């Protein structure tokens, strides 16, 4: 008897479980109605493109007259040919160099400058002045890259650009310097433009973290006669350490996906050897030359490297600091 019930039980339990699921499902029908349409939405626009990764292992032909089924499934598989082509392409290494160079410069500058500025803002004791300075420093974040690129080009221009005017007034240069036409300046200009646009915005999180530091710590330090610099070093910076680590991990994960807007908008024919980045390269081959498979292979390379970087940064920091984002 007992054995029989024992045998029957899993099935019954399964039934009961599924009937309970459907009962709750009906009870929560409004919740499902409010979420499932968007889940399908996300599936179509975020998950279906992942299927597109198969294109990287095919020789994809658009075939505009064929049926959808044929366009998706009747493609020629070529294994890793696209990747082989990618890794033997000299242009690819040039593009990779540019991407990594601008990423690292952006990572370091975009990481250090906001921390320094946040620390300085935190030391401003005049609340009104601090608030005005903050409001102004957030401003460029809300302006599009098109506008920022326009402003940067204008400021660096040889006819009456502010930077050239200033440098000539200071007597550092005798005649206007063509910043935008020099290859060696391009990486620096992109990094500086990024710093100009995002520094203020990136201080928000650090300032919030600093606001959470107990004022008693500062008072105790003052009693002990610690100078302001020492207070920053021993109280403020340790107080925002976990914020720093989390943001660093996240930005390492985005190292190769630096986007392409800045490079697209700031570059010109004279500096293209230093301006081409992976995303632009994929765009150029994939869409402008209709070589979809090759373009996708570049995208796949980009995504895979990004994920590897994210996980290894997370792992390394977990070991060193016992802090992680996952």
């Amino acid at each position, binding site marked *: 008897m007992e054995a029989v019930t024992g045998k029957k039980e899993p099935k019954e339990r399964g039934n009961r479980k599924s009937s309970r*699921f459907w009962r709750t*499902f009906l009870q*929560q029908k*409004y*919740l499902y109605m*409010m*979420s499932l349409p*968007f889940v399908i*939405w*996300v599936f179509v*626009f*975020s998950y*279906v*493109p*992942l*299927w*597109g*990764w198969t*294109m990287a292992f095919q020789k994809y032909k658009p075939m505009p007259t064929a049926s959808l089924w044929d366009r998706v499934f009747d493609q020629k598989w070529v294994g890793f040919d696209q990747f082989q082509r990618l890794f033997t392409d000299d242009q690819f290494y040039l593009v990779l160099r540019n991407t990594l160079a601008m990423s690292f410069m952006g990572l370091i500058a975009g990481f250090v400058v906001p921390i320094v*500025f946040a620390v*300085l803002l935190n*030391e*401003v004791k005049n609340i009104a*002045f601090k608030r005005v*300075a903050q*409001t102004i420093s957030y*401003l460029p974040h*809300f*302006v*599009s*890259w*098109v*506008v920022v690129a*326009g*402003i940067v080009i*204008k*400021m660096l221009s040889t*006819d*009456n650009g*502010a930077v050239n*005017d200033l440098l000539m007034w200071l007597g550092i240069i005798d005649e206007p310097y063509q910043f*935008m036409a020099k290859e060696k300046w391009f990486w620096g200009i992109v990094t500086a433009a990024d710093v*100009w646009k995002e520094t*203020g915005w990136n201080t*928000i*999180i650090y300032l919030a973290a600093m606001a959470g530091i107990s004022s008693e710590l500062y008072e105790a330090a003052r009693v002990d006669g610690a*100078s302001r*610099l020492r207070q920053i070093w021993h109280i403020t910076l340790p107080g925002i350490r976990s914020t720093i680590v*989390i943001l660093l991990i996240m930005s390492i*994960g985005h190292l190769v996906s630096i986007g392409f807007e800045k490079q697209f*908008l700031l570059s*010109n*024919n004279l500096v293209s050897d230093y301006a081409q980045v992976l995303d632009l390269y*994929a765009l150029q081959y*994939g*869409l402008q030359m209709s070589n*979809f498979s090759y373009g*996708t292979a570049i*995208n796949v390379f980009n*995504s895979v490297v990004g994920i590897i970087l994210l996980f290894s940064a997370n792992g390394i920091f977990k070991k060193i600091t016992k802090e992680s984002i996952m």
Partner: protein
Amino acid sequence: MSTKSKRISAPISDRIFDVVVYAVVIMVVIVTLYPFLNVLALSLNDSTDSVRGGISIYPREFTWKNYEVIFSFSGLIQGFKISILRTIVGTLLGLLSASMLAYTLSRPDFQGRRFISIFLALTMYVSGGMIASYILIKELHMMGTFWVYVLPGMVSAFNVFIIRSFMDGIPYALQESAKLDGANDFTIYWRVILPMAKPALATIALFLAVGQWNSWFDTWLYNARSPELTTLQYELMKVLQSTTSGNGDYRNTNMTQVMASVSPESVKMAITIVVTVPILFVYPFLQRYFVQGMTLGAVKG
């Protein structure tokens, strides 16, 4: 009390430190503001006079001519309309979808909660890439339509999670009492939760609106052949690219003629201001909200 004691005991080094702090912050403020003021001054200055140089932050020969000229260009007017339309539609759709999803995820008893959370979170780390998305949009016949601006990016996991973490802080008892009064889940969302989540919604609305207003790449990628769907940012981008790089994918005769009557530099400056000003008017009023939203998002990681 603390300022008083500081004034008495502050060593010289700390006073020097204060001077340095203020000097650096003031310099950052100047470096941030000057370019905007410079562009504004140039856009309001007579274009032949501008060529002489020396304009800093105020116009030397004031004129509205540059603005009159750019607003006589039909492409720009059309771009203005589409930019406003996509900002309104995109913001509303984005708010509605993110807040609905966020509400269902904030309900501890919702059985789809775990699956949907993970399903959404994954999209923040993996993406199919530009080429695959392009082919998808093409297959869906969305190219050359207005919808390509607002539909593909409608549901954003980041926005959902920010609103969710705000909704988690709303006392659950409120929902339970509404339920006792016979309200269904949708009514609770609409009547109880949404009004209380206003600060989070304001933050997300700002992010969405700014994102929509600032987009140019989707126009370039999907709608470059549909002049009736042009956007303000895209028009500015074309004007800027037309002379800087000289690789001219800009062949609009109407605009070239317009630019001949005043200098192209002045036209660029005026369009830059037209594109930027709406944002300047909106964001200081919403600053309180977006700082809140940013820190909320950061805490959740």
